[in-house]
């Protein structure tokens, strides 16, 4: 079935020495002209790093000709000193090979010191491949990025399910690459700048010689991100008495998802695909907010991997309080409205950020 000659290891060697490197690059991930939130967040953080190092912040936008331009304007408004735009039909949708080829060529040509990517499925797919192509270091899912005394990028990461924190550097290789999960850094405010368009520079790459390897047959994007990868899960139990609207508003505000206990699902208040627990979905969000959930082990099994568990229940004896980091004894219909108000006034971005079309 397989070709006669099995694949062999190809050693390419370093792209360029670190002392020749300059510039903070952010790969701006866009789909159909809509820029990912995480890319905006990285431009904000990239601005900080650029100021610390007194180096330019460069945004790189890859996409179909008609879409890349939209993303480029966004990036310019978000503070990039320069926006490199590659509009190419082969880049219309994310695919590992053309995206790796394009970034590889730009990086080798311009020699950035730092390259940041969002830790989305596509971002991780690209970063993992590109780092080996460039023979350089890559850190994953950083919780913070700082500049050390010698000007090195310090990637703050956690491992072992969050139990161990480490700082990782990449001294002998360039660029220093890092991925960051969505929601870690705040989004910078967009500003209208008179010379924004002057900072957008089309760049060309050679993608025609590369044989297309993987073919995208079909791509479907739903409105919802899915329970298992949501950073916040708001869970409703019997205490909601079937009224999930405050829970939905809370999930929406925090870019999270709504889940439910078995009892709530049994009552038909919400679909079976939302059930969390032993016989439902096991979630590992950063925050689980359980509202009117008593805490049968059926449920707690499903959220034991959450970083932080908040329980709101009018019954002070609810077993879930034993499995929670923070507990509020009170009626969820009284506790949630001021919380929503607080979150909305404090983080206008989270509420008003453009949502991708379904």
């Amino acid at each position, binding site marked *: *079935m*397989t070709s006669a000659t*099995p*694949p*062999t*290891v190809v*050693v390419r060697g370093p792209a360029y020495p670190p002392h020749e490197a300059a510039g903070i690059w952010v790969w701006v991930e866009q789909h159909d002209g809509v820029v990912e939130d995480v890319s905006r967040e990285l431009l904000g953080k990239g601005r900080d790093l650029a100021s610390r190092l007194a180096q330019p912040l460069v945004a790189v936008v890859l996409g179909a000709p008609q879409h890349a331009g939209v993303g480029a304007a966004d990036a310019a408004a978000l503070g990039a000193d320069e926006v490199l735009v590659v509009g190419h039909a082969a880049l219309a949708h*994310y695919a*590992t090979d053309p995206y790796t080829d394009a970034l590889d060529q730009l990086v080798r040509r311009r020699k950035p010191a730092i390259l940041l990517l969002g830790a*989305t*499925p*596509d971002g*991780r*797919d*690209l970063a*993992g*491949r590109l*780092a*080996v192509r460039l023979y350089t*270091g*890559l*850190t*994953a*899912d950083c*919780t913070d990025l700082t500049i050390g005394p010698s000007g090195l990028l310090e990637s703050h990461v*956690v*491992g*072992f399910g969050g*139990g*161990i924190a*480490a700082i*990782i*550097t*990449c*001294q*002998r290789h360039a660029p220093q690459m890092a991925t960051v999960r969505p929601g*870690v850094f705040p989004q910078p405010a967009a500003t209208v700048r008179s010379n924004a368009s002057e900072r957008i520079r089309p760049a060309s790459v050679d993608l025609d010689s590369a044989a297309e390897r*993987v073919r*995208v047959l*079909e*791509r479907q994007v739903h409105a919802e*991100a899915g329970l298992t990868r949501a950073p*916040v899960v708001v869970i409703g139990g019997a205490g909601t008495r079937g009224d999930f609207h405050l829970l939905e508003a809370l999930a929406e505000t*925090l870019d999270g998802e709504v889940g439910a206990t078995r009892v709530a699902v049994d009552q038909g208040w919400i679909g079976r695909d939302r059930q969390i627990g032993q016989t439902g979905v096991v979630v590992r969000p950063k925050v689980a907010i359980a509202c009117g959930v008593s805490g049968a082990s059926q449920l707690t099994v499903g959220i034991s991997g959450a*970083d*932080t568990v*908040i329980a709101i229940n009018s019954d002070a004896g609810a077993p879930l*309080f034993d499995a929670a980091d*923070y*507990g*509020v004894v*009170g009626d969820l219909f*009284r*506790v949630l409205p*001021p*919380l929503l108000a*607080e*979150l909305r006034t*404090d983080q206008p971005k989270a509420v008003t950020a453009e949502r*991708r079309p379904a």
Partner: protein
Amino acid sequence: MRIVVCVKAVPKPEEVGMNPETRTLDRSKARSEINPPDMHALEMAFALRDRVGGTVTLLSMGPPMFVPYLRLGLAMGADDAYLLSDRAFGAADTLATSYTLAKGLERIAATAGPWDVVLCGEESSDGATAQVPPGIAEWLDIPQATYVSEIAPGDGQTAPAIEVRREIKGGEERLRVPLPAVLSVAAGANVPRFFDPDRRAIAESAEVVVWDAAAVAADPALIGAAGSATTVAAVESAGRVERRHEMLSGPPEETARTLAGVIRAALSA
């Protein structure tokens, strides 16, 4: 179809602590398990073999204590197992790890015949980088598909390619992947089958082939600490294992402010 599955053993994440004196990771108390995402890669491999026939080979890089976990994979149904084990492989980052595994794959093809597809878990529960599968694909200069949730045999004998379903942010895509290729399997893509106790007895005495750096002709400059591009500058315990059990009381507005702070802090952690 000849399938290779890359697996590793990991300490149970919640049981790894820090030795406060040496400031190194303390895994002594931790029970280990097969990296949970790798279990889904194993199941996908077995299910594929059940449908189209072929073999499932296990490949791992790690200390000799990995052998029992490879035997567990054999008890689940794998045909053979290889362990890349050498002190020189130690302290490898994902660059050096993916190189080493790629060299192991090269050697497997040379000695046991060419393989068609390499399956990996989407990430490991300890490092959680998800970088090794694309890294292996790049070292071998072959196609990759990450976060694969389903695999369908492609056009079979005439066109060496398979069709896969891949999870993307907020959706999924269908890809046609020419073989040989590296696939990373999405966590939760399937339910890993339990091992067969009868096979387990046989697996206990089955041979696990152990190769050192020389056996896979690995360049000493590209493996272990020497071949790693990143350095761990500092490690500390972020260690919060127990829930805090903090009860908030007071007027609703005050509680709301505290909760909002807790949520924001948790999201940026």
